[in-house]
């Protein structure tokens, strides 16, 4: 068989290339469908949050928040609500947004302009004690993160580096408790907290979460990778165990510690069932529960609800955009799905 390229070979190659190009295009098309599906709800949330209550009721809905305007007597545009349209006579009955009588104008006098109603955010914020909710969530999150870091480092160190009777069995016992779903321990925990008198206090939201078994697991795993020789050398040099933990182990475990911080923050910020059960009044109520209550109270003021949803998720979203890789990695490692 000759080795020169025939026309047939060229045609086959061209066919392959074309199929390949089509496949590539298909891949990107598929990926972009996914992007659109993921993004549209977020866009819709923001768009709705910037609309006026009247505009919300329009169907078909507008994609961009728009206001209707007519030219007022002094030549500047004034915003109006369209009460009704008379298609045949090509007129409409309008009413100024600030208030005032209804009047009829010609349809051509009305022009639309993009109108972003940021005041919705202010109004939503004021309709419920969101400042308090925000403070509560931040307060609780800070303490829980600090607590988890401290308790997990200490416990992981003990499990990784110290010898004591039943060490591995106790560790397995801890791990097995991780597998128990929340509905099982939330009911008895509630009773424990009632007995302690901690219902509706910060203690109920913070203290039970100061230890996190999975974090202990992760840190212990990492601690075990630090060579024994390093430890022995330090001990011989007179280093205390705690100093070794503080000056050597922890700095070497920065990546794991960051991961722990991240999934603890996200988990605490977004937690819902636990605070829902353990709090009753706005004093200690965290953001997510407050937001849920707000949505139940508002019922139909969708622009306010969307505004509230937006400012409730904003901090995490902003953080996400700055640290996507770490956050994704951290949450994927933690096995956190909800």
């Amino acid at each position: 068989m000759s080795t020169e390229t025939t026309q047939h070979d060229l045609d086959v190659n061209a066919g392959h290339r074309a199929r390949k190009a089509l496949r590539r295009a298909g891949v990107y098309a598929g990926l972009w469908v996914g992007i659109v599906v993921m993004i549209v709800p977020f866009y819709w949330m923001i768009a709705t949050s910037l609309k006026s209550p009247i505009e919300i009721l329009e169907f078909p809905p507008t994609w961009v928040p728009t206001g209707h305007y007519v030219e007022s007597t002094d030549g500047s545009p004034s915003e109006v609500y369209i009460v009704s349209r008379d298609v045949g006579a090509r007129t409409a009955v309008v009413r100024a947004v600030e208030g005032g009588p209804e009047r009829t104008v010609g349809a051509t006098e009305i022009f639309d302009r993009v109108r972003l109603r940021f005041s919705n955010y202010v109004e939503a914020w004021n309709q419920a004690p969101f400042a308090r909710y925000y403070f509560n969530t931040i307060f609780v999150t800070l303490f829980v993160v600090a607590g988890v870091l401290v308790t997990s480092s200490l416990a992981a160190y003990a499990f990784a580096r110290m010898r004591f009777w039943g060490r591995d069995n106790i560790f397995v016992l801890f791990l097995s408790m991780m597998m128990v779903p929340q509905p099982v321990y939330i009911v008895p925990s509630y009773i424990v907290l009632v007995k302690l008198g901690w219902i509706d206090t910060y203690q109920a939201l913070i203290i039970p979460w100061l230890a996190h078994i999975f974090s202990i697991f992760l840190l212990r795993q990492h601690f075990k990778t630090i060579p024994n020789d390093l430890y022995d050398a330090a001990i011989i040099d007179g280093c205390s165990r705690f100093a070794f933990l503080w000056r050597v182990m922890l700095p070497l475990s920065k990546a794991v510690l960051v991961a722990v911080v991240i999934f603890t923050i996200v988990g605490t910020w977004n937690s819902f069932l636990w605070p829902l059960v353990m709090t009753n009044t706005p004093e200690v109520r965290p953001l997510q529960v407050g937001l849920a209550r707000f949505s139940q109270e508002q019922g139909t003021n969708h622009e306010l609800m969307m505004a509230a949803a937006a400012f409730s998720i904003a901090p995490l979203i902003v953080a996400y955009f700055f640290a996507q890789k770490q956050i994704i990695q951290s949450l994927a490692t933690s096995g956190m799905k909800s």
Partner: protein
Amino acid sequence: MSWLESIRHKKIMDPLTAALYLVPAGVIVIVFRMIPIGSAFLLSFFDVKMGRVRGFVGLAQYARLFQDPTFWSSLGTTAYYVLGVVPLSLFLSLFAAVLLNQKVRALGFYRTVYFLPVVTSLVAVSMVWKWIFHPRLGLLNYFLQFIGGGSLQWLEEPRGIFEMAAGALGWSWWPDGLAGPSLALIAVIVVAIWRGIGYNIVIFLAGLQNIPDQYYEAAHIDGASPRQVFWKVTWPLLSPTTFYVLLSTTIVSFQVFTQIYLMTGPPVGGPMGTTKVIVYYLFEKGFDAGGNMGYASAVALVLFGIILTLTLVQRRVVERRVYY
């Protein structure tokens, strides 16, 4: 120090020091995990209102539980939910991960966007989707009308989808038992898939990227078609990851609560209770006015039993097909 001293040091100091280091985490774990988990079992035998024990009920509480039709319907609803979420989520996320693994440019961009819903709070997600599913003003009905269909009631629709499909086809009769999950439940399933898919995509992607190139090169040399490459190389080597995603998605789905509570929430638990899943049933029976926490504990333990059984079953049935 001498040999003797060093031994003494280890035998006594270690356990003592260890105890000290373990106390912070240990106390929390004991008081807020061990004791509750241990007493959950005990609790389920008592009638408990408002945190106060009111009497011993024993196994009768479980009997009452198993005789409550609402319990069984919640179980059925949960089963429908899990059956709806798990296969679809698995399939879609695997598909997306495979696409992303095709040496795509700006992989990070796609991954970031797909993962965004996972980072967003469930409360906000539920609120936004509830608005999208709005029967009169919602985006989804607008979309439906745009492509020529009629609008649906979504989260307020109690009718089963099979029954609805039969109606759409013009059949006026459909067996009651086969009505299927309600459209409302389907709406909740859609939200769950939307929210969780990014997580599974990331896991699958990691699994895919762990497959050494040599296998693909060998397959290419042997002239394998893309389909053969997938089924003979990718799928078997991905099976540990697939198994993990299957198991974790199932376990999480069984415990669904927040979306149900927020999108079809109190007082009813969905249109005619058709979205009342087991954790919602538990919440209602335990924490609503006049709640009996002993009863709720019993429900929780039954749920745990189911999850445990399912985990074991999945391990036996599926794990043998996993190539390690």
